C-alpha cells in the first residue's frame, strides 16, 4: 500500500481523496494555488506545497510544478481527482515515467477513450450500440439524404473538427436537411477551417444514464449499476439519482454487460464511467466514456455500500477487487444535489465571495461532501461547486422527501447558492414522478415554473 499520496486537485474532491487516504493510513500531500491557501483540503492534509498563482493554468494545470512537488514530497502516487489533469494522458505518462503511480487508468486507455470518435469506433467493435449515424465523413448532399433516410429523422449534422456545440445543425426532414447540410459545412469551414461533417441521429428528450465501471489490474471488470443524470442545465449535471427511475432489471443487465465489454476491450483499469443516451423506447446508445472518478460517484457508494475512492487507491496499489465491491448489490435509493455558488434567481450567475455563516443539515441518511465552512471565501477562479448533498432512502420517494427536509435546513449566508432551486425541484411533480429527460430543467426554468423563494429557515448566527 502507498505510504504517501499527492492530491493534484482542490475543493470538495481533494477533501474526499484526503479522507480516503487518512482512513487507509496513507500520508497526504496537498498542492494548492495562492487562492486556496485557506482551503480545507490544504489545512487537513499532512503536508502542503504552493504550486502557483490563482489561475488554474498557473497552478493546478502546471504538470512540472506538480511533479516537482511530488518529488520533494517523496510521494508514491498521485490522485488527480476529476477535471484539471484527471483525463490528461500526457500527465499520466509523465507520472509513469517518473515512477509515481497515477491513480487511474493507463495513459493508453485514457487516450483510446478520450478521442470521442475513436471511442465510438471501439464501442462499435465491441458490439455496443452507438448513436446511429454515418460511418464517417459525408461528402455530398445526396449521401446525406441517403444516410438520413436510413437512420431516420431528426438528424444532426456535426462538424468533424467541431466542438463546444458549434458547427452543429438539426434537420427534421429532407428539405431542411439540404439547407442544413450546406450551411453546416459553410460554418465548419469558417469556424474550423475544415468543412467535413458527419451525420448522427438526434435522440429526442433522452435520459442520460451512465454506468460505473470498476476494474482491477488483474483483468477483473465489474459494473456497479447506473446513475440517472438527466436533470441538467445547459448540459451541466445538477441532480443525479441511483438507480434510474427508467431502469428495468433486463435493461440494466444489457447495458451493464455492454459497459463491461467495452471497458475490457480497451484494457481499462481503475474506475471509469460509460455514458449512454436512452430514448423513450428504452433503446440505449453509447455516448462517451469518462476515464476518472466522477462528481456523482457518491450515490453509487450509498446504494452499493462501498468506498470508490478507497477502491481506486487499492487497485492502483495492485490489489484485486475487494470482494464487497465485486459482489455488490444495490439496496436503497440515493439522490445527489450539487450546490453551486450561483444565484438561481439571476440566471444562475456565479456568486463567489465570503460565506458568512454555514450550517449543513444532518440526521439519518444525509451525507454532505463539502470543503466550505463559516468564514470561507469561495474564489472566483474555479468551478462554482461548493457542496454535494446526498440523501438515501428505502424508496425513491423517501430519498426525495429526505432531500426536501435536509435542503430546508441548509443555511448558507453571505453568498447566493442553488439550495432554493433544489428545494423547488424536490417539490416538482414531474421530478417526483420520475417523469423527466435532459430537457426538463431548462423547460421548467424558462417557463418560470419553480418557486425560488429562499427556504423559511432563519438561524441566529
Amino acid at each position, binding site marked *: 500500500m502507498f505510504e504517501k499520496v499527492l492530491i493534484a486537485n482542490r475543493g470538495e474532491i481533494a477533501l474526499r481523496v484526503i479522507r480516503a487516504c487518512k482512513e487507509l493510513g496513507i500520508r497526504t500531500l496537498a498542492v494548492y494555488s*495562492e487562492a486556496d491557501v485557506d482551503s480545507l483540503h490544504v489545512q487537513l492534509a499532512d503536508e502542503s*506545497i*504552493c*504550486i*502557483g*498563482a490563482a489561475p488554474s493554468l498557473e*497552478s493546478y494545470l502546471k504538470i*512540472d*510544478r506538480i*511533479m*516537482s*512537488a511530488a*518529488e*520533494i514530497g517523496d510521494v508514491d502516487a498521485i490522485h488527480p481527482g476529476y477535471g484539471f489533469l484527471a483525463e490528461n494522458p500526457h500527465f499520466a505518462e509523465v507520472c509513469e515515467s*517518473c515512477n509515481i503511480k497515477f491513480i487511474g487508468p493507463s495513459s493508453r486507455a485514457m487516450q483510446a477513450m478520450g478521442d470521442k470518435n475513436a471511442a465510438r469506433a471501439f464501442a462499435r467493435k465491441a458490439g455496443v450500440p452507438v448513436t446511429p449515424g454515418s460511418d464517417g465523413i459525408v461528402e455530398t448532399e445526396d449521401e446525406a439524404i441517403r444516410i438520413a433516410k436510413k437512420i431516420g429523422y431528426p438528424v444532426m449534422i456535426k462538424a468533424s473538427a467541431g466542438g463546444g456545440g458549434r458547427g452543429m445543425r438539426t434537420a427534421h426532414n429532407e428539405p431542411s436537411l439540404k439547407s442544413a447540410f450546406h450551411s453546416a459545412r459553410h460554418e465548419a469551414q469558417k469556424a474550423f477551417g475544415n468543412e467535413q461533417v458527419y451525420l448522427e441521429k438526434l435522440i429526442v428528450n433522452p435520459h442520460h444514464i451512465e454506468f460505473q465501471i470498476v476494474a482491477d489490474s488483474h483483468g477483473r471488470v465489474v459494473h456497479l449499476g447506473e446513475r440517472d443524470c438527466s436533470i441538467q442545465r445547459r448540459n451541466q449535471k445538477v441532480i443525479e439519482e441511483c438507480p434510474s427511475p427508467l431502469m428495468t432489471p433486463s435493461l440494466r443487465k444489457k447495458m451493464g454487460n455492454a459497459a463491461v465489454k467495452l471497458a475490457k476491450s480497451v484494457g481499462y483499469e481503475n474506475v471509469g464511467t460509460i455514458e449512454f443516451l436512452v430514448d423513450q423506447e428504452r433503446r440505449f446508445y453509447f455516448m462517451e466514456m469518462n476515464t476518472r472518478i466522477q462528481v456523482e460517484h457518491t450515490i453509487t457508494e450509498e446504494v452499493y455500500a462501498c468506498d470508490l475512492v478507497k477502491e481506486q487507491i487499492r487497485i492502483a496499489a495492485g490489489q484485486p477487487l475487494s470482494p464487497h465491491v465485486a459482489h455488490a448489490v444495490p439496496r436503497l435509493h440515493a439522490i445527489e444535489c450539487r450546490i453551486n455558488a450561483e444565484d438561481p434567481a439571476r440566471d444562475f450567475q456565479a456568486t463567489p465571495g465570503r460565506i458568512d455563516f454555514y450550517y449543513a443539515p444532518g440526521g439519518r441518511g444525509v451525507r454532505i461532501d463539502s470543503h466550505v465552512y463559516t468564514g470561507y471565501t469561495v474564489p472566483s477562479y474555479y468551478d462554482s461547486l461548493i457542496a454535494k448533498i446526498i440523501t438515501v432512502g428505502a424508496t425513491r420517494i423517501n430519498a426525495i422527501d429526505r432531500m426536501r427536509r435536509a435542503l430546508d435546513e441548509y443555511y448558507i449566508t453571505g453568498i447566493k447558492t442553488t439550495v432554493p432551486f433544489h428545494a423547488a425541484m424536490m417539490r416538482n411533480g414531474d421530478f417526483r414522478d420520475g417523469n423527466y429527460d435532459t430537457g426538463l430543467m431548462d423547460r421548467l426554468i424558462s417557463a418560470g415554473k419553480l418557486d425560488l423563494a429562499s427556504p423559511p429557515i432563519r438561524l441566529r448566527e
Partner: protein
Amino acid sequence: MEKHDLSVFEIEKEGFRLKLEKGASAQAAAAVPSAAAGPPKAVPAAPETTPAAPKAIESVPLKEIVSPMVGTFYRGPSPDAPAFVDVGKSVTEDTVVCIIEAMKVMNEIKAETSGIIAEVMAENGKPVQFGQVLFRVR
C-alpha cells in the same frame, strides 16, 4: 493613530505594505513592497497606555525575491562552491542569486531587482514552494 489610541498600524495592499509605529522604541516604518498580491487588510494593534508623539517615519524599502517554482533551494552552484550571494552583496536584475532544482534540472534564479541583499530567507538544501520569499533586498 492618535485618535484611536493606536501604537502600531499596518496595512497591506497589492505590491505595497506600510507599518507605522509610535513610541520610544519605534525604529519606525518599513514601507515594504510585497510581491504577493492580496486583499487589503488593516491591522490595528492594542493601544499603549502612555501615548507619545508619533515619530517621523523612516522609509526603508525592502524588496523580496520570491520563488517562481517548486523545488529545492541551493545557495551555490555546487555543494563545495561558495554561495552566489551573501548579506551585503550588491545585485542587479541579472545577478544569479541561487539555484532551484526541480526534477533534476538546476534552474538559475535571477534577482530581477537591484539593491543589496539584506536577508537570506530560505535554507540551503531545503524545499521551497511557489511564492516563497528567498531573499530580502534593500
